[in-house]
């Protein structure tokens, strides 16, 4: 048996525990991802999707439970500490890159993700430039000629594509995507989704992707999870996910949670 890429065991998260505003955001979550699985997560506003991802990433301390990545217990490791195992693309295109650093400096930082950084070795090494260019060229956005541009000057879509590249330039044990195309216009969003699919499947990266786009949730990935009020209410493997339509999905949600999916993004799409 291979070691799972991610094991979430009895995960509970409370916000403002012990106050009148107490919010039990995640309830006894059990989730195991085998290496190479590409899981899409859907659910209404406030269902706990981001809370789950933040717990795995380490930006939110776990109140109860255990998180293992590639067999290692990371429950109490800081974000920086577990960065050698996890990489991440945020919703806001500005979040994933350092705006005043150039494209190549950002990529150089990502090349050392989770590794020790020396003060005697050059940050951007000449021998890495070819790799950077090749990777940028694979995005098909003409960015291979912009290595020396400050990343803050690029468009949101370009930045998000580069963030995706940075997250995968060194293979992570687990890739986390939290609505990483939600802030982009529809066309750019489609481009970045296609790139995501291309990179994730080419390198067989274990991935957790939150999306509000039912279409994307069905189209991409090898497994689909639905969260509701802090619980996993639906967990569909590839076989069951295939052939499902959006109405099927909405019905399934209603069946499992007893309510309509309260998701403004869904209503709009």
């Amino acid at each position: 048996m291979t070691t799972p890429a991610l094991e979430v065991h009895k995960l509970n998260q409370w916000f403002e525990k012990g106050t009148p505003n107490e919010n039990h955001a995640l309830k006894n979550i059990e989730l195991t991802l085998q290496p190479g699985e590409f899981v899409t997560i859907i659910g209404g506003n406030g269902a706990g999707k981001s809370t789950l991802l933040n717990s795995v990433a380490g930006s939110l301390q776990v109140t109860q439970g255990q998180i293992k990545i590639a067999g290692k217990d990371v429950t109490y490791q800081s974000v920086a500490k577990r960065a050698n195992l996890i990489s991440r693309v945020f919703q806001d295109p500005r979040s994933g890159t350092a705006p005043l650093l150039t494209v190549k400096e950002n990529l150089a930082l990502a090349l050392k993700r989770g590794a020790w950084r020396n003060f005697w070795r050059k940050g951007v090494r000449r021998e890495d430039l070819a790799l950077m260019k090749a990777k940028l060229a694979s995005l098909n956005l003409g960015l291979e000629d912009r290595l020396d541009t400050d990343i803050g000057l690029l468009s949101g879509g370009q930045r998000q594509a580069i963030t995706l590249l940075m997250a995968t330039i060194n293979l992570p044990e687990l890739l986390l995507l939290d609505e990483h195309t939600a802030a982009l216009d529809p066309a750019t969003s489609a481009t970045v989704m296609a790139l995501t699919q291309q990179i994730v499947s080419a390198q067989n990266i274990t991935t957790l992707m939150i999306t509000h786009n039912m279409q994307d949730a069905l189209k991409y990935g090898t497994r689909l999870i639905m969260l509701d009020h802090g619980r996993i209410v639906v967990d569909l493997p590839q076989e069951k996910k295939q052939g499902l339509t959006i109405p099927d999905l909405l019905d399934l949600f209603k069946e499992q949670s007893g309510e309509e999916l309260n998701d403004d993004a869904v209503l709009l799409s």
Partner: protein
Amino acid sequence: MDILTSNISTGFLWAIMAIGVYLTFRILDIADMTAEGSFPLGAAITAHSLVSGVGPLAATLLGFCGGALAGLVSGLLHTKLKIPDLLTGILTMTGLYSVNLFVMKAANLSLLADVKTVFTMVNVGDATLTTIVIGLLILLIVIGLLVLFFNTEMGLAARAVGNNQAMAAANGINNDNMKIIVYMLSNGLIALSGSLMAQTNGYADVSMGIGTLVIALSAIIIAEILVRNVTFGQRLLMIIVGAVIYRLIIAGVLQLGVDPNYLRLFYALMLVLFLALPLVEKEVKKARERAANKREMNN
């Protein structure tokens, strides 16, 4: 002529301090008050060392290290105890006042004429000229080392922390450690400036740090007004120009017969002016646009 050269040499020493302040101010976005304590600390340590017979180079280096240590304290207070940056600076600065008195055993420590300093180690003939040459040499070494450092793996990480902490953490960079390193470098340089100042002036004084931050910020902002969008190294070089210009403005004001006791009020007012300049520029532009629009509408 002599007034000009002596002001330029002071400008160079201010530039070292301004470069130190620049690191926390622009890389970490912190106006670090520790500067006001680490500047006299560098002076105090070096003066005390020189008087006790330590060689000038070692005494200067000790001054730098003292400042770095002060930076370490501020860095730890800010990152580990999460004390807000401004308060952190005030705390360390206040504590350093006593430390400086302890180091000097008095409010003021004079260097006797026969004490060797980094400026009297070599003799180019003219004393002020020697000060300028050595000051510039030290500046260029400092800038060269900083440019090298901020382009290493670790230096890049430090810049990323100032830019985007979430991104830095997601890439495995320990934000706290990088901030502490920048704090240490910054205050080390400010102390180095204080150390050199004591060696040119021939004394160290506990109150010589008052105004440090305002002077440094003025030099930085002049440099930024002069040229925008330059590389890190070019920016540091421009700070030398900024510091010298600022020093010359001050000298001009003194020449006009302003009482030196009012100098610090003048420092403060100048900085207010520099800080307000971009806003004024914007308002003027807006007013022009409004006027143009009105004319358009009335036609």
